[in-house]
């Protein structure tokens, strides 16, 4: 049981890390918490379901298209809703919260309350070290999640765009002085944050089907991960995501299934009480 729970924790932890990276990116650069993050995750799940099942596209193409569309949707949301709120953090919180409720209800209206599931990529299960059989789809999700994270890290560490992102999250004013177009940077990073949620969504949707409100616990966990890891810290997201995934699944296995999602909040409370700036957070703003 320990081995299976750990494996589940690892898979879901990687997805949490991926979702949290999106939140963290946007917090670091724009100081905006996107409370509709989970709904972007779900949107990508619905898109991939729609393209693959209804339009009969190959699953990889459906996934790619879903992520691209959510990215564009993210750009649009930034342009229409978030951009006018810069300098007023409160309104961005209110707007994204309302947006999340609107999207949940729109999904309910369009797709109904029933779970929808895009087709899996591969079938069957693999015997892991003679310990247990593990679904190939979950293994593939793990690999895909890690791959996306590696790509994101490479982009942040190696490319020109990544350098600007790092500079802006260190000191916005300084980046602006050095001629960075922060308006475009904001738009791109918000879109990218949404695309990361979308990537997590398309990867996990074949394992955990999407429902209109299924994004809420995912987003909440991502927020906990971001606080645990330290606002704006990328490594914090990875470590935090893995910790959350493992704690939830081991907790569910040994303590209580019903309280699975509460364990994350226990961690949140502990972090706030003991080290509120998080594992990798900077002490001072």
């Amino acid at each position, binding site marked *: 049981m320990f081995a299976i729970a750990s494996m589940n924790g690892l898979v879901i932890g990687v997805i949490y890390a991926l979702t949290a990276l999106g939140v963290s990116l946007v*917090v670091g650069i724009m*100081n905006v*918490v996107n*409370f509709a993050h989970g709904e972007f995750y779900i949107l990508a799940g619905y898109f991939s379901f729609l393209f693959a099942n209804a339009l009969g596209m190959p699953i990889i193409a459906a996934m790619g298209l879903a992520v691209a569309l959510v990215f564009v949707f993210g750009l649009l949301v930034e342009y*229409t*809703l978030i951009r*006018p709120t810069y300098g007023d*953090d*409160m*309104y961005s*919180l*209110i*707007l994204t*919260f*309302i*947006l999340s*409720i*609107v999207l949940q*209800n*729109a999904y*309910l*209206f369009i797709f109904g309350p029933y779970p929808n599931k895009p087709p899996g990529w591969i079938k069957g299960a693999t015997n892991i070290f003679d310990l247990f059989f593990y679904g190939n789809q979950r293994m593939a999700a793990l690999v895909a999640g890690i791959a996306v994270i590696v790509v994101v890290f490479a982009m942040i560490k190696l490319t020109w765009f990544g350098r600007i992102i790092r500079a802006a999250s260190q000191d916005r004013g300084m980046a602006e002085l050095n001629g960075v177009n922060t308006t475009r940077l904001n738009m791109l990073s918000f879109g990218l944050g949404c695309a990361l949620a979308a990537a997590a969504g398309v990867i996990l949707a074949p394992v955990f089907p999407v429902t209109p409100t299924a994004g*809420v*616990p995912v987003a*909440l966990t991502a*927020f*906990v991960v971001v*606080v645990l890891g330290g*606002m704006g810290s990328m490594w914090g997201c990875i470590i935090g995501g893995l910790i959350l995934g493992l704690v939830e699944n081991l907790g569910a296995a040994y303590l*209580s299934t*019903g*309280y699975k*999602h*509460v364990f*994350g*909040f226990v961690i*949140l*409370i502990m972090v*706030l*009480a003991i080290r*509120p*700036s998080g594992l990798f957070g900077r002490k001072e*703003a």
Partner: protein
Amino acid sequence: MTISLGESRLKSTPKILLCLAGLAVFALLPWTMGVYNQHVLIVCLFYTMMAASWNLLAGYTGQVSFGHAAFAGIGAYVSGILVVKAGLNPWGGVVIGTLCAAAFGFLVGLLCLRMGGIYLSLTTLGFSEILHIVINNEYEITRGTMGLQVPGLIENYSKIAYFYIFLAGALITLAVVYRLVHSNAGLNFRAVQNDERAASALGVDVVRTRLLAFTVSSALAGMAGALYGHYMLLITPHLPSLDQQFLVLSMTVIGGLGSFVGPVIGAFSLEILSEYIRAWGEYHVLVFGLVALFVARFAPKGIVGIYKAWRGKYRAATA
């Protein structure tokens, strides 16, 4: 020299008389209507309590709590459980429920308020989710989604009596908000909302100021929730849900964040509207959401803000 202090301070006797007259007419209103409309009025008053107390936090100190409905749930469930399981008098339940909401508010605030605004939003959202999970899991005590049946506040159930109870509750809430906002603490609230750093440089203890607003706001939500539970006679997890949170937030934003009458206007107009479009089923939430999104984006001060801008233009035109 006259100095106007605070936008909505009642200055003149005619204004106070007008308010009292309006209140008197409103207090007689339920005698002229059927049971269904009486119910709508009572629910309006419940949302007035919720929106006005949420506004105290968001509108006057700039802190967004997503746990306001959850604190109403704390008030309702604590009172309901104590009355059902321990045989407490329902009024005693309401008092203890309110105090519990205050205590939870204080603890949650203590935990996250020193870290700034975003943390309060995240933590209250998390708190709201935990509460939901606990209510659903502790079925033996809370009856889960079936709902907890609780006795009423008065022996003989009467809408009119409940109307006056809720009217009193709403007036208490509004009085607390008014007193607080127009006290010295109210100056600190608004200073913190406008600019935290400048406020602390002038001697404002920012964390304590936020904690005060958050605790009072949560206590008022607890009172509203406890009263609501003993009115509906059934407490379900729908009370502390994000849907309810969203409704309260939308009412405040649409009515006018940071204005005294805004939440009252928002609560009444949205609740009455939702009764009319109830036929659309669940989709009325979608409609409210789109309206709230539109208002928050294009008229961030809500109906009151639109009215003030219009009045300003009108005065400029006639002057």
